C-alpha cells in the first residue's frame, strides 16, 4: 500500500466518517453538522488536488486491496485504484460536493431537516467516491447501488410532498432495471474471467478469450447500468422527476456527479467496451438519440429545473455519444467541464427559486437587476453550455465534434450539431425569460442570495470559464495527454480543426440569436411558434408521452399479472390445500356413519359381507367354495 492509494482511501473515508459523526452525535446541532460535513469534504478535496498534481507530474497506477469476503477461490475485495482517470474524477466530485455543501448552508437554512440533509450529502459523497476509486466490478456495483439509495433519500427528502416521494421511488426502481442488466453483465464477465478485478478482467478480455457475440452481450449488459444511472433513453424518465428534490441535490447528484457515474463507468471499462464494435455502435446511437431527443423536449418546458434536467440528459447523451464513437478523452473532458457549468446552472436556478419561490420561468423575469451575481454567473454558465469560445463548453464540445467528424459517421455528427444549436437556443430562452425582459409578478420581492450561496456560484463560474483551456490543442498541458485510452487514440487532438470550431461557433451563435429574436426582441411571437407547431408542441411538452406509455404498461400489464398471481395463489394453490382439507373432513363425516356403536349393525354388516363374499366366490371361483365345506 503506497501513499497515493492510502490517500485515495482516506479521501473516500472522510465523508462516511462525517456521516457517522452527524448521525451519532451532532444531529441536534445544525451548524456543527454542516461544518463537520464540509470540513470532511474540504479535506477530501485538498487530498484530491494533491493526488491530481501527483498524477500530472508522475502518472501511474496505484492500487491495493482490503479483503472483504472470500468464498473458497472467489475473492471479493474492497480496493483502491488511483490513476489519471480516478484523480480527475476525484477532483470534480470533491470540488462540486464541497461547493454544493457550502451553498446548502444558505439554501437549506430554514429547513427542519438541516442536519439530516448534510448527513445524506456526506453519505452520497462517500458512495460516489467509492465508485471512483473502485478497482473491481463488485465494488463498483456496491457503490453504484449506494449512490442510488442516496439519490432516493435525497429526492424524497421532502417526503411529505407526494410528488417528491413518487419521484424518489421512480428513480430507484427505474435505476434498478438498469442495474439488473449491469449485474448480469458483471456476473457473466466474472463467470468467464474468474475474477472481479478490473485489471485482471481487462487483461482477460483483451486476450480475446471471450467470443465476439458474447463480448457484445456482456458490453451491452454492462452498458445497461450506465443507461439507468446516466439516464439515457429509454430509462431517462426518472431524471426530470428527480427535480422534486432540493435544488443543491439536483446540482450535485442529478447534474454534476452521480449521473456522470454511468459515463465514468463506461470510461473505466472502456477496454471491455471497445472489444465489441457492435456494442460501441449501440452506445453511440443511444447517446446520440438521447442528446437530440432530450434537447427537443427542453425547448418547450417552463419549469426552470426541468429545462436544466432535460439539458443534463442531452449533455449526458453527448458524452455517451462521444465514448461510443471512440472519443474517450472527449467524453471525459465534457464530463468534467459539464460538471462545473451544469452545477453552476442548477445552483443559480436554486438561487432564483430561493428568491422568487417559483419554478416557472414565465412567472419570473427581469431578475438581472435584483440578483446581479446570480445573473452574471448564470450567463457565464449559459454561454459555456452553449459552446461559446473560449469558455469551457466550447473546448469539450469541439473535442466531441472532432471525434464524430473523424469517425466518419455523418448522421451522428449532424445530430450533435443540431443538438448544439438547440442547446444554445433553449438555454438562452431560459436566461432571457428569467433575467432579462420585464419583471414577472414573482420577481418583485426578489433579492440577491446570501454569500454562502453566491460564493460557490462565483467559484464555479471561474471553472466554467477556464476549465476548457486544458483542451487547447498543441500546448504543453493538455487533457488528451492526461486522459487517454491508448497512446494512438490521443493523437488526433494535436492540432485544432478550424473548420469544425467555426461551424460549431456559428451554430451556437445562431441558436442564441434565434432565442433573442423570439424572447427578447419578440420579432417572432412565442405564441405564434406554439400555434404553428401545434401537435408537435404538445408532444414535446408532454415529453413524447413516454411516462404515460410506461404507466400504461405498469397499470395494464404488470398490475394485472400481480393481481392474477394473487388470485391464483389464494384460489388455486391454497384452494388445493383447502380442498384436501375439505375432502378429508367430508370423507371423515361419511365414514363416521359406519361407526354407530350398535352391535346389531356391526353383525349385520359382517353377515352381509360374508354373503357377498360367498356369492362372489361362487361366480368367479367355484372351486374355492369347496374349502368352506372342509372340516
Amino acid at each position, binding site marked *: 500500500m503506497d501513499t497515493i492509494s492510502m490517500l485515495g482511501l482516506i479521501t473516500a473515508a472522510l465523508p462516511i466518517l462525517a456521516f457517522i459523526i452527524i448521525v451519532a452525535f451532532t444531529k441536534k446541532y445544525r451548524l456543527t453538522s454542516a461544518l463537520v460535513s464540509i470540513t470532511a469534504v474540504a479535506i477530501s478535496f485538498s487530498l484530491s488536488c494533491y493526488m491530481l498534481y501527483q498524477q500530472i507530474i508522475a502518472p501511474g497506477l496505484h492500487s491495493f486491496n482490503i*479483503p*472483504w*469476503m*472470500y*468464498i*473458497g*477461490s*472467489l475473492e471479493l475485495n474492497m480496493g483502491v485504484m488511483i490513476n489519471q482517470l480516478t484523480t480527475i474524477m476525484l477532483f470534480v466530485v470533491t470540488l462540486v460536493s464541497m461547493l454544493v455543501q457550502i451553498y446548502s448552508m444558505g439554501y437549506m437554512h430554514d429547513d427542519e431537516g438541516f442536519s439530516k440533509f448534510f448527513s445524506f450529502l456526506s453519505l452520497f459523497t462517500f458512495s460516489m467516491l467509492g465508485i471512483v476509486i473502485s478497482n473491481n466490478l*463488485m465494488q463498483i*456495483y*456496491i*457503490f453504484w*447501488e*449506494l449512490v442510488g*439509495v442516496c439519490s*432516493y433519500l435525497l429526492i*424524497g427528502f421532502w*417526503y*411529505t*410532498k*407526494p410528488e417528491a*416521494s*413518487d419521484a*424518489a*421511488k421512480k428513480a*430507484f*426502481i427505474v435505476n*434498478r*432495471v438498469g*442495474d*439488473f442488466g449491469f*449485474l*448480469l453483465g458483471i*456476473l457473466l464477465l*466474472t*463467470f468467464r474471467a474468474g475474477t472481479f478485478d478490473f485489471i485482471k478482467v481487462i487483461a482477460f478480455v483483451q486476450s480475446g478469450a471471450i467470443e465476439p457475440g458474447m463480448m457484445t452481450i456482456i458490453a451491452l449488459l454492462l452498458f445497461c447500468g450506465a443507461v439507468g444511472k446516466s439516464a439515457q433513453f429509454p430509462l431517462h424518465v426518472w431524471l426530470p422527476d428527480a427535480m422534486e428534490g432540493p435544488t443543491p441535490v439536483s446540482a450535485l447528484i442529478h447534474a454534476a456527479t452521480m449521473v456522470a457515474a454511468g459515463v465514468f463507468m463506461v470510461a473505466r471499462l472502456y477496454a471491455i467496451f471497445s472489444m465489441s464494435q457492435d456494442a460501441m455502435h449501440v452506445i453511440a446511437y443511444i447517446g446520440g438519440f438521447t442528446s437530440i431527443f432530450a434537447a427537443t423536449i427542453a425547448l418547450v418546458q417552463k419549469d426552470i429545473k426541468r429545462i436544466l434536467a432535460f439539458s443534463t440528459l442531452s449533455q449526458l447523451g453527448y458524452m455517451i455519444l462521444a465514448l461510443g464513437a471512440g472519443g474517450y478523452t472527449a467524453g471525459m473532458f465534457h464530463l468534467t467541464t459539464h460538471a462545473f457549468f451544469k452545477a453552476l446552472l442548477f445552483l443559480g436556478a436554486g438561487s432564483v427559486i430561493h428568491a422568487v419561490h417559483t419554478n416557472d420561468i414565465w412567472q419570473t423575469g427581469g431578475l438581472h437587476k435584483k440578483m446581479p451575481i446570480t445573473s452574471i454567473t448564470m450567463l457565464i454558465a449559459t454561454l459555456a453550455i452553449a459552446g461559446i469560445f473560449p469558455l469551457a463548453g466550447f473546448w469539450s464540445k469541439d473535442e466531441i465534434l472532432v471525434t464524430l467528424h473523424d469517425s466518419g459517421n455523418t448522421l451522428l455528427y449532424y445530430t450533435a450539431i443540431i443538438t448544439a444549436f438547440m442547446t444554445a437556443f433553449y438555454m438562452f430562452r431560459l436566461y432571457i425569460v428569467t433575467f432579462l425582459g420585464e419583471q414577472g409578478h414573482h420577481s418583485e420581492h426578489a433579492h440577491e442570495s446570501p454569500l454562502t450561496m453566491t460564493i460557490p456560484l462565483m467559484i464555479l463560474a471561474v471553472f466554467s470559464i477556464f476549465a476548457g483551456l486544458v483542451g487547447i490543442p498543441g500546448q504543453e498541458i493538455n487533457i488528451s495527454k492526461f486522459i487517454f485510452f491508448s497512446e494512438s487514440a490521443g493523437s488526433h487532438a494535436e492540432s485544432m480543426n478550424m473548420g469544425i470550431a467555426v461551424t460549431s461557433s456559428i451554430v451556437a451563435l445562431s441558436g442564441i440569436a434565434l432565442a433573442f429574436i423570439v424572447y427578447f426582441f419578440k420579432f417572432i411571437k412565442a405564441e405564434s411558434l406554439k400555434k404553428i407547431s401545434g401537435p408537435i408542441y404538445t408532444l414535446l411538452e408532454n415529453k413524447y408521452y413516454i411516462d404515460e406509455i410506461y404507466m400504461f404498461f405498469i397499470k395494464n400489464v*404488470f*398490475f394485472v*399479472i*400481480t*393481481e392474477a*398471481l*394473487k388470485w391464483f*395463489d389464494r384460489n388455486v*394453490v*391454497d384452494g*388445493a*390445500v383447502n380442498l384436501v*382439507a375439505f375432502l378429508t373432513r367430508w370423507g371423515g363425516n361419511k365414514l363416521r356413519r359406519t361407526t354407530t356403536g350398535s352391535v346389531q349393525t356391526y353383525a349385520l354388516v359382517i353377515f352381509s359381507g360374508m354373503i357377498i363374499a360367498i356369492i362372489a366366490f361362487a361366480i368367479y371361483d367355484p372351486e374355492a367354495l369347496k374349502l368352506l365345506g372342509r372340516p
Partner: protein
Amino acid sequence: MGIAIAQVFNQIPILTIIYMMPLIAVISMFLIPGTNQKAVKVVSLVFSVISFILALMLFFAYDFNKGGMQFVEHHIWAAQLGINYFMGVNGINVVLVLLTGIIITAGILASWDVNNRPKEFFILLLTLTTGVFGVFMTYNLFLFFLFYEIAVLPMYLLIGIWGTGPKEYSAMKLTLYLMVGSALILAGILGIYFASGMHTFDFDVLEKVAFDRNFQIIFFPILFVGFGILAALWPFHTWSPDGHASAPTAVSMLHAGVLMKLGAYGCLVVAVWLLPEGAKFWFPTIAILTLVNIVYGSLAAVAQRDLKFIVAYSSVSHMGIVLLGIASGNSIAFSGAVLQMFSHGIMTGLFFGLVGMTYGRTHTRIITEMRGLAKNMPVLAVFFVLTGLCSLGLPGFSGFVAEITVFLGAFKAFPILAIIAITGIVFTAFYVLRVVQIVFFGPKDPHFDNLKDANKIEITALALLMFFIIAVGVYPFYMMKVIHSSVLPIALKLGGM
C-alpha cells in the same frame, strides 16, 4: 479471544447449557405466580439474553480453520436403537444458533406488552426456542426429529390463543401443514435408518454410508419436500401468509426468523448431505420450483394490501433464494444460502416486529389505510426504511451479500435460471418502496396525530437486530469464513466445489 473462549467451552457441555437456558426459564416460571407479569417477562428476558451471549461467544469460539464439528457432546443413550445424545456444531449450525439467540431476545423484547396470560405465552415461546436450539445442535437424527416436533407444536397454541383474525383456522392450517411435513421427514429418517444397516441415528456414521442410488432418488424428495414445507417451498407455502397474518408479533418473528430456516437447514444438512446422488438427480427440478418462489413470491407481494401478507410473500421470495442456493449444489451457492438464512432470519424478524409495532398503534395492517406515518413515528419509519432497503438487497446490509453470493453460485450451476431469479431484485424494490411510500411518506394524516413513536424497549429490540444485518453487510468476511468452512464438505460430497 476466540481461542480463549474455545478453551473454556471445550471443558463444559456448552451446547447443552445454551439450549437449556430457555428450558430453565420455563421451569422457573412455574414457580412464579402468573399475576406477576413483570417477573415472568424479566425471567424470560434474562435467560434468553444469556443464551444469546453464549451463542455469540460460541460463534467466535468456532475455529473455521479447523472446520467440521466442534464442541461435541456424545453420550450413549439407547444403544440398541442407535439413539444417542449427540450434540455438536459446525459452521452452519453455529450461525443458526446465533440467529436463534438474537431472534428470541428481540422477540421477547417485542412481546413486552403481551398482557393476555403472559406466563403461558412465554412458557410456550421458550419451549419452542429450546426445540429450535436443539435442532440446530444435534447430530442424532432421532433427537433431531424430537427437537423438531418440540419446535413446531407450541406454534399451534401460540397462534390459536394469542393470535388475531381467523386465528383458529390459521393455527390449524399451519400446524396440520407442518405435520404433513413432519410425517414425510419421519418417513425419510426411518428410511435412512433402515437402509443404512448401521443401526444408528448418528449423523457422522450415516454421512459416510453410500446409499443405493435408487433409494436416494426415491427418498431425497420425501425429505426435501418434508423440510421444504417449513421453508415455504412453492407450492407448499400457503400456510405462511395465513399463519403469519394471525400470529402474534413474537411468534411471527420466531417463525419466519428461525423456524423457516430450520426447514432450509434440514434440506441442506439432512437431505442433501446424506443423499447426494438423489440431490443431484432432483436439483434441476427443485431449482425451477425455487425460481417460482423467488419471482412469483415477489410479484404476489406487489398485489397484497395487508402488511403481514406483504412480508409473508416477501419471505416466500427470499426463502426461494435460500433454496435456490441449496439447489445449485456448489460451495459458493451453499455459503450464500446459509448466509441468506441468517440474513433473512434477522431481516424478517425486524419486519414482523415493525409490522406488529405499527399495527399496535394504528390498529390496521391495510397499507392504504395508513399514510404519512414518518412524521408521527420517525424512529419506526427509519427502521422500516432500513429493513426495506436490506430486503431489496442494498449493499451495506447482509441481504445483499447473501443474495449476490447465491446468484454467483447459481449462475455457475444454472445460468438461465439465475438470470430469471435476478429479476426478483427489481420486483422486490417495487413492493418495498411502494409500501414505504404509502405507509410512511406523504402528508401527515391528522387521524394518526396521537400515535407515539417506538419506546425504549422496542428500540432496543429493533437496534439489536439492525446491528447484525449491518455488521454482516459491511464486513461479511468473518461469518463467510465460518460458513464456508462447513459447506465445503457437502459440496465436495456432491462432487464439486
